[in-house]
């Protein structure tokens, strides 16, 4: 949150709003961080890679995909690093066999839910989900496919949503609310029956809140949201606008 300039100067003074700096370790490497930084962000600052899907620089964190899980010494459960803050002397492991195994399983489960057939997808070759399979070394899906059948909504003049390719990362929901300010997108239903909706589950083309800006399409990690008329493998997403928009609005806190 930004204050008027005279107040901001005070807010920016570390002696008035002190932010604690703490030290902890990731994979045995000593790192320091502000207490309000996430483990994911500290890891990436230090060149330690953690895979993510729902995370997108410039949007708030949601912790939806769980691919960024890490091990924290002393804790029996795995924690999503995008929404976990470090504590002093914490020991974080990002690449143990257990972590890598669970990440692959999570990714496989994402593939079991809906119909992610890359070869006939508009985003083939430009897809975050597809890239993760090579990054995480996923070769097969060891679970039964659910392949819930969803209709394509192509009622919008320029865009279409194919729920069969949606991974429920909620990037569209966040960019629409946080950057565009329209909050057209939301999620309805529970569990694997959840789906993203426009307005009150109306066809996208009939949405009164949608401004047609297309930011949701550009941030979507898969081919779920795409520009109409794009053939297979033609849909490349342009996300360069996000940091600029954040900068112009003077809001870099998120």
């Amino acid at each position: 949150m930004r204050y008027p300039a005279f107040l901001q100067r005070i807010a920016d003074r570390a002696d008035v709003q002190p932010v604690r700096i703490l030290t902890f370790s990731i994979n045995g490497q000593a790192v320091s961080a502000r207490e309000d930084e996430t483990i994911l962000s500290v890891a990436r600052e230090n060149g330690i890679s953690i895979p993510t899907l729902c995370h997108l620089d410039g949007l708030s964190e949601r912790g939806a995909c769980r691919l960024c899980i890490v091990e924290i010494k002393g804790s029996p459960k795995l924690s999503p690093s995008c929404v976990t803050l470090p504590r002093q002397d914490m020991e974080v492991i990002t690449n143990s066999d257990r972590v890598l195994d669970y990440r692959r399983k999570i990714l496989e489960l994402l593939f079991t839910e809906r119909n992610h057939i890359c070869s006939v997808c508009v985003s083939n070759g430009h897809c975050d989900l597809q890239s993760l399979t090579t990054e995480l070394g996923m070769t097969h899906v060891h679970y039964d496919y659910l392949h819930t059948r969803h209709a394509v909504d192509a009622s919008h003049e320029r865009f279409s949503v194919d729920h069969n390719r949606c991974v429920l990362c909620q990037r569209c929901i966040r960019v629409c609310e946080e950057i565009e300010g329209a909050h057209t997108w939301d999620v309805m239903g529970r569990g694997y029956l959840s789906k993203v909706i426009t307005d009150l589950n109306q066809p996208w083309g009939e949405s009164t809140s949608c401004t047609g800006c297309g930011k949701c399409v550009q941030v979507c990690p898969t081919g779920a949201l795409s520009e109409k008329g794009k053939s297979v493998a033609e849909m490349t997403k342009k996300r360069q606008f996000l940091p600029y928009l954040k900068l112009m609005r003077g809001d870099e806190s998120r």
Partner: protein
Amino acid sequence: MTQTIQIKPITRIEGHGKITLVLDDSGAVSDAKFHVTQFRGFEKFCEGRPFYEMPSLVERICGICPVSHSIASAKACDSILGVSVPAPARKLRRLLNCGTFIQSHALSFFHLSAPDLALGFDADPSERNIFGLFKTYPSLAMDGINLRKIGQQIVESCAGKRIHPAWVVPGGVNKPLLEENRDFLLSLLPEGHAIIHRTLDWFKGSLENYREEIRTFANFPTLFTGLVNSEGNLEHVEGKLRFIDSKGATIHDGLDPQRYDEYLAENTEEWSYLKSPYFKALGYPEGIYKSGPAARLNVCDGCGTPQADQEWAEFKGLERGPVLSSFYNHYARLIEVLYSLELMEHLLKDPELLSPHVRSIARNNEFEGVGVVEAPRGLLIHHYKVDEEGLITWANMIVATGNNNLAMNRGVLQVARRFIKSGKVTEDAMNRIEALIRAFDPCLSCSTHAIGGPNLRVDLVSPDGTLLHSVLS
């Protein structure tokens, strides 16, 4: 006691099929059926998809002729867009199609059929394959490999990859041709010409050896159909449909392919997943017609390119009317490869081919579209209906192999009657039945995966279902 013989699976064809032969009490063949045993379901699961995904979606029907499917599909989508495709894009699609014809015909002739043609239909089955061909006729086998490579390189240079490229799109193609790729393709032509002339000389010189096969490989009167251009010459991508009868008389000419359903209908049989299209006016099954390489050369007035025209004239000279025996499909394939090489050269020398104007952009303006091309195996029809949003509500595809279903079935019977005597199923008789099917080069599931284990199994089954005898080759 009647007996049933099954040939399952049929080898050296694209996909999976089986043949059932029924023998009567005297051991003579009384009935024969050619079954396609795989169900694909494309027409159904394409429903609900956006039409602009269709060219790539239907490409997955086939690993050998995906390009044919993508062009037929894109033409149907062009109609749904309601736009005219820019001339450079039409030429590029045509060039791409030359590549697919060369590689597909090379595969059929050299990899699948040459073992029969060169080594003999009754050669040792363990040698009667591409490896055996390499041992005995290494230069012929190498020619096959190299010719197919040329075809694949044409596809790759145009479309970016050899199998399942996503280059042909509704309204045109999605990238112009690069000048260096054009030059590379021009450099392939001399080798292509050398191979095809060598092979034509060899094949024509050995036609004498196949007299019995020529006489019995689906050698009976049927209608023939194919696309021809405005001059009546051979045409693969555009043009109008022509039907001729078994005497060579034109029954219909200049038929608009968009209205295919006015003169073609499909029949289903419970013993095969492959539908049997027939010529409506004559009814089922009298409306039997042949499509594919020999049929195309039968219906056209020439190829329109100088060297292929010479070969065409020789081909037409084989018989007084249309060339009836489907064995001659092998011959026709070689002529079409020559035609494709010549057409390719003509296209590559056209400066317009490098134009960046290769795609017309529009939304769906029409609710229905039909796209028709000649695939290597025959006429290929894609027909879609879409709703207001451009989502497919109905799809019908008549694939090239389907056109010849009736003819293949009757052909199997003809060959079986000639080569199976007194209920004795010899290995070479089985191979001739398979070779008849190979002459049509059917693309059953449209995949080329090799079949492991025994190449062929023939079961003799009594009417009550007990297995009497089994032969493995």
